[in-house]
């Protein structure tokens, strides 16, 4: 197209678009980005949060949106790559009003500073590394547990209730696993304990026999496994294959899911894990669970609930603070001041943006997690 043609085209486009934007000024959608890993090892978690947010979006739009503006979700795939996380974070400010970060810890920690500097409010729903809410970011809020509290509780239970002294640590080498390992090492050190084995694995690894052989050789009584459900299931099954079915398994909140039970079968019986999660007695959780199973043919887990609550929290804040990019600072403060009855229970945030929730210890008994402490 020639320059002249281009000009004409732009003029025609402007004439066509102007009346549209003028008439729909009040109904311009509120666009929320959902960033996460939709094609890599963390895809099950990010996808769950995205789907939860989609249900929330439909609920909000069914009752007229936010002051008449429909909510719209835009999906961003970081492929669990921290570099991609930064690239996306740089784009997000121009394309969306606020962000739900359903990424694992590594991309969250790389995208976080970029979003924070740009002043874009974001709510994270999957990352558990403590640094997410301990880096002094003003625009972050985490609707998920921090490993600071989870690992401490697990170590406490293993040493005080089970009275174990030989506790091995296996972690995946992402920021999630490494963050968990460091807190566990410190928590054990405070009790003057040294783990007999501290070994990592890559998230894509499938064979853990060399790590397990080491655990076996040291006679560990328990093993803290900090990684994804899939990794933990593979490890526990392979422990059983190598005759280690008496060693107690400890894990984080991610393990308390139907998926862990279904994938792990009888090998994962007796697992101890932190649990702060969806109480089926909460009406909102039950309602969400029904809607979710019907629409996505999958059992609801905590990441669905957190994605769902995250969008409702954001929508509430936008409703209070305004829908323009210039309102972002007000939106961020409104999120911190949230008091909202969600699927995960009452949602509030502390001064760092960390969601405050009670953490229970649960044990897998006969295919069901039960609260033991």
């Amino acid at each position, binding site marked *: 197209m020639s320059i002249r043609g281009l000009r004409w085209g732009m003029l025609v486009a402007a004439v066509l678009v102007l009346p549209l934007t003028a008439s729909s000024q009040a109904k311009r959608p509120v666009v929320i980005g959902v960033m996460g890993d939709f094609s890599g090892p963390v895809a099950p978690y990010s*996808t769950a949060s995205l789907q939860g947010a989609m249900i929330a979006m439909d609920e909000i739009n069914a009752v007229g949106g936010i002051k008449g503006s429909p909510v719209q979700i835009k999906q961003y795939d970081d492929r669990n790559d921290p570099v991609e996380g930064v690239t996306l974070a740089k784009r997000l400010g121009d394309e969306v009003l606020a962000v739900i970060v359903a990424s694992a810890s590594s991309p969250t920690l790389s995208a976080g500073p970029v979003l924070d500097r740009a002043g874009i409010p974001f709510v994270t729903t999957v990352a558990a590394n403590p640094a997410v809410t301990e880096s002094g970011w003003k625009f972050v809020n985490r609707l998920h547990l921090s490993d600071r509290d989870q690992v401490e509780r697990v170590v406490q239970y293993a040493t005080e209730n089970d009275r174990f002294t030989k506790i091995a640590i296996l972690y995946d080498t992402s920021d999630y696993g490494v963050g968990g390992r460091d807190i566990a090492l410190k928590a054990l050190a405070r009790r003057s304990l040294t783990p007999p084995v501290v070994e990592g*694995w890559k998230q894509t690894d499938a*064979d853990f*026999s*060399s790590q397990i052989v*080491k655990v076996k*050789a040291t006679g560990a009584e328990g093993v803290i496994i900090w990684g994804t459900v899939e990794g933990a299931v593979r490890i526990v099954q392979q422990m*059983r294959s*190598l*005759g280690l079915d008496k060693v107690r398994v400890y894990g984080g909140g991610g393990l308390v899911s139907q998926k862990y039970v279904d994938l792990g079968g009888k090998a994962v019986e007796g697992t101890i894990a932190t649990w702060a999660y969806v109480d089926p007695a909460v009406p909102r959780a039950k309602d969400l669970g029904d809607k979710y199973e019907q629409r996505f043919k999958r059992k609801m887990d905590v990441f669905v609930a957190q994605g769902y609550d995250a969008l409702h929290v954001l929508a509430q804040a936008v409703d209070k603070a305004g829908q323009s990019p210039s309102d972002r600072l007000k939106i961020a403060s409104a999120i911190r001041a949230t008091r909202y009855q969600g699927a995960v229970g009452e949602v509030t945030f502390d001064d760092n943006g960390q969601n405050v929730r009670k953490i229970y210890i649960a044990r897998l008994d006969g295919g069901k997690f039960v609260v033991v402490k």
Partner: protein
Amino acid sequence: MLAQVALNGVIVGSIYALVALGFVVVYRSVAMFNFAQTEYYTLGGMLFATLLVVGGVPFLVALVLTVAVGVAVGVLCERLAFRRLLLAQAQPVNLIIASIALAIVLRSIILLAWGPDARRVPSLGDDPIRLAELLITPQQAFIVAATVLAVAAVALFLHRTRLGLALRATASNRMVAGLMGVPLTSVLALSFGLSAGLGALGGILVAPILLAQFSMGQAILVKAFAAAILGGLASIPGVIVGGLVVGLAENVAGAYLSSAYKDVVAFAVLLLVLAARPAGILGGRVDDKV
């Protein structure tokens, strides 16, 4: 402990060898590397899981059906992605890029069809059998046995049958083989179908111990690739040697150094072997007399 570590290395090495065998079959017929090979492995695992768990199909029927679908997909992929390139004597690098593209397409289709979640596949047995001080589960024993059988069957096929001869002749020189009366298009379909079937079989075997998930092929690609190269790409028994070397190296390194060094040691061994024997451990020249 060493004996158990070695046995674990053999078990993992068998998986690498079986996947590497698929690479080698294609290499032996068209002298190209098919990066989509491990996606047939993923397809095998996912389809087998679905047939067995959701469909309630009996074990053996599910196994045969899955391999058959794998073969069909392999033939189809050859027809759609590679045939024109192969018959036009395209540059090897074009073939490799085409196979990478095919791998991405297949993986995306699998992700769309099955979603991102892992699936559990019932095994032949997870409770270990004790042999002296060594532990092995029935499923693991099944993997090792099936790998040995598959490698032997493929070796016999390539070296004792006329079709196998045609395959090898095609690798040596596609144009001359065609002129000598080798039915090129059937040979191409056969070798891609066979390698895809072997890939699917690999997925079926490991799914019960490693879970079936859309990303399982990506996870094994580099290891199987290393096993194929180590064994000498053109050698069928070589894949067993290559698979075992990679499996043993990473298990010994993981157990006696640290699991952080697992991959480092496995690939350092690969570099060392290639420096000493550029054609791989059992690799000879590809242009052998056929």
